[in-house]
Every structure is written in structure tokens, then in C-alpha cells.
């Protein structure tokens, strides 16, 4: 053993200390490519910006930056994915392939063994090795979160050539794929419960207590001596064998007269006025004495009296102490948190479910989404200021979420159209387009002659007036059989389906599957000619079907997977991808295996604009400061375009072609 004297020991200790200091300041970590590139690429990903709306408002002179960019280079509709769902569309953009190549076909896939829905984008597994001591279960290895998207992301290819890239909140990248580039995950990132976002709402108004609301939990509380005591539920405690839900005690003190309350939880307290949002609050769900899960949430004191109403946002992953992987390198999220404080990490940040369930009203929802937008704009300024080489991709979600929720107020034919609300909030969508115009103005100012500026959206938008119950249509046309017809509409997840007499079923938003023998647990349709004939028959009948109320065809086109997809994952694709017509979309019941009685119903929800239709109905947008040579560019054409700009060899798996 080497002898180390006291002086050497002190020197080594100091060196180790310095390394610690450097690591904590982030200076010792090589986080991304270092090459100075002669060309730079700046991409604005504006989710859901619609070609028709953009064109109309550009013509009216409301979007000067878009107009300027279109006149410099080009402006074309951008062909979206089949189906035009965000995870699929962004995966096309990320990989340059179609779903046959990247394996993401829908928001929801299904497990054919159990006829059960599964998230398409990521899979979480618990620790495989554990040791049990009484009621305690101690993991000996870590659990895993796997990004299910296949294929190499374009920033991973750039990394191979040492070209730096910062990719901010791109959807369909949770958990972020392994890279040294700066990336932070966007849509698809769960809340701390592992869901797409569960809010909590505490009220004394019993009529608001609904047994089943998606995306939220409503708690009945009582005000006793001007005090409310409640619990905020957290993640399931997997350290205990009975897996109880973790929770945090909340106390709310209300003034006897003034509309104001103090909220006290863990070691913090804050006062809110009625109608006021709190800042981010950091909370810790204690699992065992040495382990806790850290999250952040916002409080909104909706009403003090006559009824007490308190909304708590879904608990987001704390970017400063992320319990799940949300960025690469890990320190990138921490760096942003240090500069900007806690920020929204949940994939779809604004709480559309709270608006849909009337927990938040239109104004309150917009206040929340304004917080999201303001936060994003601050971070955009920061990233734009330090962008000097390689690629910067920046993503905006508010465009998508506001169009989903406020389309009803620009569409007089929509069943949820309300003239009074339209007067107040009818310009919400136009306003968010104007906000993106301001973002573009900043990007244009930054883009020098060596910067290729690309503005794109993954899809456009269309009204969602009528809901198509695809499983009901299958049942009415003899392709789906129920065990007990009297129970129709009451059971989820095909609990009332007689699989031995069912030929087809639908899970997800655009996916239709044949109950194939050998693939599905109780499949009855043989692979080969029998299945192919059935697929073509169903596709044809779907396209021929007409809405008895309007006379229109709800399904514009039913795509057969093997005709439209290429790549190694075509075999696991849905058999038919249903492309809905303008104004139509799959119902809320069908994606999770419920079979209502009516084939088509009015959509009376606030979620009133959509894009899960036929790709031709909802093209995205493409604007650049270079002349576009492609006649009809598609999302997956942008990937090889980026690689070509940097002079990088385009991998043969990429299906797209450069646009200039």
C-alpha cells in the first residue's frame, strides 16, 4: 500500500474539494457538443398552429413577423403524421421516420394479451430485486423508465458529429433519450403520480362532488371554526407492502369576514386572497424516514364563502430535485431551476381537465396558461441569448392547449358555442397566435445570415363537433359482440365484450385492431387472407358511413397500416388508422374501451378543437428564411433537412427528404 503523508493528504483533499465545487457549479461537466458550426439552425416548434388560421390572420396583417418570414423564404402547409396525434407527429419529426420506423402509433397502445390500454410513449418498471422486512419493502436495484420511441433522435446524430444542440421541451421525449446534448422533456412527462396530471379540488359544495372525473380528484371538506383540514394525496408508497397512498396534511385558516385564507403545510405557510394563485410550493412526500419524493404544485383559492373552494394543481416533478429523469444532462433541469425557480415540468402544463370539469373557469384556466407562457418566454430569452452554434429547438404548448379548449368560442356551429363567452374569450386563439408572432420576432432578430430559421407545427386544428363511437359502430355492424346487451354503455375496458364472437375493436384515438388469432388472447380472425379481407371490408364500410344528422361522412379515410407504414414495427401497428373528417373525432368513451348506445353524439365538452382526424384535414405549418424546394413537405422531411444543413450524412433508415 502506498504511503501518503499528511501534506499529500491535504493536497488530495483540497483537489477533491475543488472538483466537488466545480461539479456543483456545472463547469466540470461536458454537457454537449463543442464544435463551432458555420451554419446554425433555430427551430420554433409551435404545437398545433393551423395553416388556415395562420394564413387568414397573416392576410389581415395581424401577424407581421410570420408575414416577414414567409416573404423571405417560404410558407407551406406541412404534412403531418398518420394519425396526426402529437406523440406520433413529433416522433416523425424527431426520427425522420413514420410510425412503422419509430413504433409510436397513438397516445394509447393496447396489450393484446389483456385487451388493456397502455401508454405508448413510456413504460415504468419497479425495482426487480427487493428485500422485505416486516411491512417494509426495500429495493436492491432501481426501477426503470423507458422511452418507447425507437430510432435515433436527430440531436443524437448531431452529437456523433460533435455539433451542439439544445432541445427544449420537445414532445415524445420522456424520459429523454441518452445524450450529452441539453434536452428537457416536454409532452409525455408525467406528474409525480406517474399520470398525465391529477389535480385536487377541495370544496364544501356537495353538488360538485362527482364520483368519476378524469384528471382530478374532488374532496369534500368542512369548515369548522374557520379552519379546513384536508390531505393532499401523493404517490403510492412502494416501500410498504400494502402500498398505501402517501399524503400530506393541509390546514387552511379562513378569516371570519375577509375573503382571505392562510394555507399551512409541512414547514411552510402562505396567504392567498380569493381568486389568487400561489407561487410554486415545494412539497415532500415522505415514504420511509430516509426516502421522500419531492414535487411542486400551485394553489388557487377559488372561493372562501359561501362555499370554500381550493384547487391544487397536479404535483409536478421538482426540476431542482427530479424524482424521475426529465433532462439531459441531469443538471440541465437544475440549472434552469436555479435561474428561474421551480417551473412546470408536466408534459401538458395547463390543466385542461380542470376546465373541462368546471373546477376552473375560462378566465382561471387562462390565468394558469399565462403563467406557463410567461415562464416559457423567460426561458426562451435565456436560451436564445446563449445560442451561438449548432441547433436550438424551442417548443410552445399554449398554442395547442388553447385551441383545444377555446375552439368552441370561434365556431358558431359547435354544440358548446356560447355567445356571451365568445364575446369575452372569442379572441383567445387569435391572441395566442399573436403571442407566437412576438416570439418569432425575437427569433428573427437573433437569426443572422448563417442561421436557418424554421417555424413549424406538428399538425393543425379542426372543430370537434361530433363524437364518433367507433366501438359502437363496430357493434352495430356486426364486428363486435357484447356479453350482455342490456349493460351496453356501462362498462369500461371491454368488460362486457364477448371476445369469442368479436372480430374488431378500437383502443386509442385513431386505432382499430382486428381480434387476430394468435396475437390477441382470444383472437378469432385468422392471419392472412381472412384478416386482409376483413380489414379492407371494415375500412370501406367506415368510409361509406354517413352521419344521420348531418349527412356527412365522419370518416374521411380509413388507412390500412401496411399500406401507409414502413419499417420494422409495422407488425405491431393498429390494423386500421381512422382518419376522421372535419368536425368529427373519436368519442371520449371509445379510446378506453367503452361502448355507448349512440354511434354519433354531439361533443358538448369544452375540449372543442382537435387534430386527431385525417392528416389532410389538419396540416401543420412550415415557414423558413430559406426557399423551400419541396412541393409538399412532411414532418419527417425536416429531420434530414437539419442533418443536411450541418453536412451530416443522412442515415438510410430516415424516410424523409431534405426540403432545400
Amino acid at each position, binding site marked *: 500500500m502506498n504511503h501518503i503523508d499528511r501534506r499529500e493528504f491535504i493536497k488530495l483533499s483540497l483537489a477533491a474539494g475543488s472538483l466537488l465545487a466545480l461539479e456543483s457549479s456545472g463547469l466540470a461537466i461536458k454537457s454537449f457538443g463543442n464544435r463551432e458550426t458555420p451554419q446554425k439552425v433555430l427551430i420554433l416548434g409551435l404545437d398545433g398552429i393551423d395553416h388556415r388560421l395562420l394564413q387568414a390572420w397573416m392576410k389581415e396583417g395581424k401577424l407581421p413577423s410570420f408575414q416577414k418570414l414567409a416573404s423571405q423564404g417560404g410558407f407551406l402547409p406541412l404534412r403531418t403524421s398518420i394519425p396526426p396525434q402529437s406523440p406520433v407527429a413529433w416522433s416523425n419529426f424527431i426520427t425522420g421516420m413514420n410510425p412503422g420506423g419509430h413504433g409510436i402509433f397513438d397516445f394509447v397502445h393496447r396489450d393484446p394479451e389483456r385487451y388493456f390500454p397502455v401508454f405508448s410513449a413510456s413504460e415504468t418498471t419497479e425495482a426487480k430485486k427487493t428485500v422485505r422486512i416486516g411491512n417494509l419493502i426495500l429495493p436492491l436495484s432501481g426501477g426503470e423508465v423507458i422511452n418507447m420511441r425507437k430510432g435515433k433522435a436527430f440531436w443524437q446524430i448531431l452529437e456523433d458529429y460533435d455539433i451542439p444542440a439544445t432541445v427544449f421541451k420537445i414532445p415524445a421525449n420522456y424520459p429523454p433519450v441518452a445524450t450529452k446534448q441539453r434536452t428537457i422533456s416536454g409532452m409525455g412527462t408525467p406528474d409525480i403520480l406517474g399520470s398525465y396530471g391529477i389535480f385536487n379540488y377541495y370544496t364544501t359544495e356537495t353538488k360538485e362532488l362527482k364520483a368519476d372525473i378524469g384528471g382530478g380528484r374532488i374532496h369534500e371538506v368542512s369548515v369548522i*371554526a374557520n379552519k379546513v383540514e384536508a390531505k393532499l394525496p401523493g404517490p403510492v408508497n412502494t416501500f410498504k407492502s400494502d402500498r398505501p397512498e402517501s399524503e400530506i396534511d393541509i390546514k387552511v385558516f379562513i378569516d*371570519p369576514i375577509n375573503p382571505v385564507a392562510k394555507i399551512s403545510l409541512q414547514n411552510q405557510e*402562505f*396567504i392567498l386572497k380569493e381568486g389568487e394563485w400561489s407561487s410554486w410550493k415545494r412539497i415532500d412526500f415522505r415514504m420511509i424516514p430516509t426516502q421522500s419524493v419531492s414535487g411542486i404544485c400551485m394553489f388557487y383559492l377559488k372561493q372562501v364563502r359561501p362555499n370554500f373552494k381550493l384547487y391544487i394543481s397536479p404535483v409536478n416533478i421538482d426540476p431542482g430535485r427530479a424524482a424521475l429523469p426529465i433532462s439531459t444532462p441531469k443538471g440541465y433541469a437544475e440549472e434552469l431551476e436555479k435561474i428561474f425557480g421551480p417551473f412546470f415540468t408536466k408534459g401538458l402544463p395547463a390543466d385542461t381537465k380542470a376546465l373541462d370539469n368546471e373546477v376552473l373557469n375560462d378566465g382561471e384556466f387562462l390565468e394558469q396558461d399565462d403563467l406557463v407562457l410567461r415562464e416559457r418566454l423567460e426561458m426562451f430569452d435565456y436560451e436564445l441569448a446563449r445560442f451561438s452554434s449548432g441547433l436550438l429547438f424551442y417548443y410552445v404548448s399554449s398554442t395547442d392547449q388553447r385551441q383545444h379548449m377555446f375552439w368552441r368560442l370561434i365556431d358558431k356551429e359547435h354544440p358548446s358555442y356560447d355567445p356571451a363567452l365568445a364575446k369575452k374569450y372569442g379572441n383567445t386563439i387569435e391572441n395566442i397566435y399573436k403571442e407566437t408572432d412576438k416570439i418569432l420576432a425575437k427569433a428573427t432578430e437573433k437569426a443572422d445570415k448563417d442561421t436557418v430559421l424554421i417555424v413549424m407545427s406538428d399538425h393543425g386544428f379542426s372543430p370537434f363537433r361530433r363524437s364518433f363511437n367507433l366501438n359502437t359502430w363496430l357493434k352495430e355492424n356486426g364486428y363486435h359482440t357484447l356479453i350482455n346487451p342490456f349493460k351496453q354503455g356501462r362498462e369500461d375496458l371491454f368488460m362486457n365484450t364477448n371476445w369469442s364472437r368479436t372480430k374488431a375493436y378500437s383502443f386509442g384515438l385513431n386505432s382499430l385492431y382486428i381480434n387476430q388469432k394468435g396475437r390477441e388472447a382470444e383472437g378469432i380472425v385468422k392471419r392472412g387472407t381472412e384478416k386482409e379481407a376483413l380489414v379492407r371490408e371494415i375500412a370501406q364500410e367506415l368510409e361509406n358511413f354517413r352521419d344521420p344528422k348531418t349527412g356527412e361522412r365522419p370518416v374521411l379515410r380509413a388507412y390500412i397500416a401496411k399500406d401507409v407504414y414502413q419499417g420494422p414495427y409495422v407488425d405491431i401497428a393498429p390494423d386500421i388508422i381512422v382518419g376522421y373528417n372535419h368536425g368529427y373525432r373519436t368519442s371520449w368513451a371509445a379510446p378506453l374501451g367503452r361502448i355507448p348506445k349512440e354511434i354519433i353524439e354531439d361533443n358538448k365538452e369544452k375540449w372543442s378543437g382537435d387534430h386527431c382526424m385525417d392528416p389532410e384535414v389538419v396540416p401543420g405549418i412550415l415557414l423558413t428564411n430559406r426557399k423551400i424546394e419541396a412541393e409538399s413537405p412532411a414532418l419527417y422531411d425536416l429531420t434530414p433537412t437539419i442533418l443536411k444543413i450541418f453536412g451530416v450524412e443522412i442515415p438510410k433508415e430516415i424516410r424523409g427528404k431534405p426540403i432545400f
Partner: protein
Amino acid sequence: MNAWMGMILISFLTAILMLFIFRFTSNQEGIRQVKNKIKAHLLELRLYKDSLSLSFKAQGNILRYNLKYISYSAKPLLVMIIPLILILTQLNLWFGYESLTPGQETILKVKIEENQNLLDTNLVLQPSTGFEIQTPPLRIEEEMEINWCLQAKEKGVHDLTLIVEGQRITKKVAVDQKPLSKISPLKVRRNFINELINPGESPLPRDLPIKTIEVNYPAKDIKLFGWNIPWILGIPPWLIVYFVLSIILGFVFKGMSKVEI
């Protein structure tokens, strides 16, 4: 001066003071002898480890002399407690809290006498240029408290004025101060013990129905090479650092000052 420099200086002075007190209040010769005895019996324990009876005897002696050592240390420790409490209460003001930053919100809490009717208490918080009153008063009967949410506006040490039963009282609010600044979160009613433990501000008059006035300041972080020293079993980071540094410096200088500890 940054927090670390200040902490090292205070710890150094504390170590010197404690060594000084220890030297002049303890039986130095007695301690020296006791320590030698313990060492001798430890040696005995090692040499005669094969003899059970001698080992037991040595252990008994070690225990006996340890107790004697503790008894010799008790007197200086008792003498040291008083200056230590005074030092700690001061240190808490300098190292316990961060001043507010402009724009930051805090809660002002006024604790009222139990025999008062909270709703009838004649108490008015006056506006100031240094901070903005964000909420109307929030009266919490369970805690006998009136709370306001304040937002810091301007740099400075501002006087927050309350009119209670027609009498003006003030409480200091520190905004955007240097890292090493005196921050007093609590103003207490005139009382010897209260004032000893909370020496940051002049006390409240006894004739008013107010027991305390408190401003919530964020706890001060103390970083070591970028790493935040955590709270341990409810002990704040500054106290951990202070004790560790004082002990280390005490041992470093005990040889020079020829103090037997």
C-alpha cells in the same frame, strides 16, 4: 464580509473564550491526572487482556476516572453556558435568516393576548414605501393571531408601523441586505427571559394586548463547495457549522494555550 468568514472569526473567538474559561474555572491539574489515569488503565487493559479479573478491574477504573473527568468538566461547562447562550442568540440573528428580496412575499404575524376578542382588537397596519400590504388582515382565533401578507418593495431596513389601541409600535423588516446582516424575525413583550433570547429589537410595551410581532424570513443556507449544508434533527446549518468549527479550533489552539481539556 461573507458568512463563512464571519463564522470562522466568531468560532475562533468562541474557541479562545471557551479555552480561557476552561483554563481558569477548571481543576487543570486534576484533569491532567485523571486523563493520565485513564490512559494508564487503558494500557493495563491492553497488557493484561488475558486476565479476566484485571481487565474488569481496569474497565471499572476507566469508568470511575471518566466520571471524575466529567465532574471536573462540569464547573467550566456550567460557567460557559451563560456566555454561550448570549452568543447563540446573537449568532441566530446574523446567521439564521436571509433578508427578503424585493418582490418576495412574507407573512407578518401579530400574536394577541388570549383574553382579547380577536375581531374587536383595534389594530391597524400602516402602509410603507418599503413593502406593500397584499391582503386584508387574516384573523386566526385558534392561534390568537392576526396575519398579513406583505410584499417587499425596496432595499433597506424598514419600520413597519402598527397602531394598537391608539399607540404606535414598530417592527423592523430587512430587505435586500448584505449576506452578513443582522435580521430580527421576532419582537417580544418586555420580559427578562424574552429579551435575553430575542435581543434583536427593543421590546414591546407590557400594557398592550400584543405578545409578539413576527416576520417570516427565509432560513439562511450555508453552502460548502456549492453544497447546501442540511438541517440535521432540527438543528440549523449555521449551528452545526458553528459547533464543528469551534470544536476544531478549540483543539487546534489548546496546545498553544496549554489548556488541558
